[in-house]
């Protein structure tokens, strides 16, 4: 990518903000529809997430008297910008688009840490006690899942495979480099370490997206959406869009790093759609068949078995499994 126009197109239209937000809203409809089907309901029409956002954009913005107004109103936009850039990089690699996108796995992980951070700061800036509770729970969750998520995704970079008679690993953190290596050596999930890494990453994804059983930070029946409690109108719409963008970005990232040997080919792109949908449906089914756990249980779960499993996956990957 050289021209300024190409950059604008990449960041704002495809596969950046507009594409990721649109796809995310469609996927969030799929979430609600599948949830409804699990509960034997009809569920909302496909236009529902779009209507919700359109409605929120037309509503009044209430800024609480106890808040820090500048931060309260700015943080949603920071969250959306970071999430859509992460989505652009993930989808660029997942689709195997031509042109070199800058930014590797580390950059994407950093960008994906910004939306929870913005929720923490926004919740704290609102001055609402429940917002502060939500912010603190966000912090605990981030502490819990970031390490196993990073370790699980590193399996894609460090997995030792047999290529052309010799042993090799991707040895790069660039998303395209990992995809190119898997095109030669086969999908990372083709090996036990890859399967373990994908399972760990799916659990972390559940927490990153705030889905049950790890929705303690939003918990609308308990702390009334936590950090988002005081948000109304357009800022709330931007946070909703951010969640939609994350729903589009996370599955694409998991697939791009661990399960995307055929990136760039027409067949590979068709398979990518199926894989992303499969990941989303899996997340939704886990969400609908589990209760919310307590925040300390969630932290113990992520720092205990999940981190151990991620470390084991890395070890297996280095041993050539």
């Amino acid at each position, binding site marked *: 990518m050289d021209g300024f126009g190409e950059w604008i197109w990449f960041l704002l239209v495809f596969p950046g903000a507009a594409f990721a937000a649109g796809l995310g809203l469609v996927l969030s409809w799929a979430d*609600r529809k599948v949830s*409804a089907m699990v*509960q*034997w*309901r*009809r*569920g*909302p*029409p496909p*236009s*529902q997430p779009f*209507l*919700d956002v*359109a*409605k929120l954009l*037309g*509503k*009044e*913005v*209430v800024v609480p008297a106890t808040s820090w107004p500048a931060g309260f109103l700015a943080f949603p936009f920071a969250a959306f910008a970071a999430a859509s850039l992460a989505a652009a990089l993930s989808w660029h690699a997942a689709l195997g688009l031509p042109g070199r996108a800058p930014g590797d796995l580390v950059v994407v992980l950093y960008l994906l840490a910004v939306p929870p951070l913005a929720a923490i700061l926004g919740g704290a800036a609102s001055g609402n006690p429940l917002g502060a509770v939500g912010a603190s729970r966000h912090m605990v969750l981030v502490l819990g899942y970031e390490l196993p998520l990073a370790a699980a995704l590193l399996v894609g970079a460090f997995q030792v495979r047999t290529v052309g008679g010799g042993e090799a690993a991707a040895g790069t953190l660039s998303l395209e480099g990992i995809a190119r290596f898997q095109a030669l050596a086969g999908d990372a999930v083709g090996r036990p370490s890859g399967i373990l890494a994908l399972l760990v990453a799916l659990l972390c994804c559940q927490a990153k997206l705030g889905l049950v059983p790890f929705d303690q930070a939003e918990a*609308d*029946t308990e*702390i*009334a*959406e936590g950090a*988002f*409690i*005081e*948000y*109304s*109108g357009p800022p*709330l719409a931007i946070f909703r869009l951010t969640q939609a963008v994350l729903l589009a970005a996370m599955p694409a990232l998991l697939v791009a790093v661990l399960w995307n040997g055929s990136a760039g080919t027409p067949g590979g792109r068709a398979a990518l759609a199926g894989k992303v949908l499969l990941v989303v449906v899996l997340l939704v089914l886990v969400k609908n068949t589990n209760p919310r756990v307590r925040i300390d249980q969630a932290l113990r779960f992520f720092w205990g078995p999940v981190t151990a499993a991620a470390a084991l996956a890395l070890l297996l990957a280095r041993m050539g499994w």
Partner: protein
Amino acid sequence: MAETAAPFLPRALRGSPWVFHVGTSGCNNCDIEIADCLTPRFDVERFGVRLVGSPRHADVLLVSGPVSLACRRPLQETWLDMPSPRAALLVGACACSMGGYRDAYGVAGPADRVLREVEPGARIAYVPGCPPKPETIIAGLVRLLEAP
């Protein structure tokens, strides 16, 4: 006190009314019927209705029960917490007209009077019944949203 003159509801809001439920000293019967609306049999999510946990996210305030003196101020605060455009749906005989609590010593008046103390032009619909059936509540919500 805030006063919004235009009770007009935009089209997008009609397709996505998020509701917040306030029980103002009711007997809990209407609350159960409101919960029924969310069950698979009635499934109001078909119409985009979502029960939200914060009045800041809400478009429609569901009120059930006669408004007791202790609930008068919290009900008004909750209403003013909602961003405009907003509307109220009074569910049950008590919320509409105080029902059996008419002339009782501890009530502040029917919910519409209490809400209009802070916003005279508030958009309000009434669902009578003791308790109203879920079908009636859904019909009332549709009337509230579709009326000019």
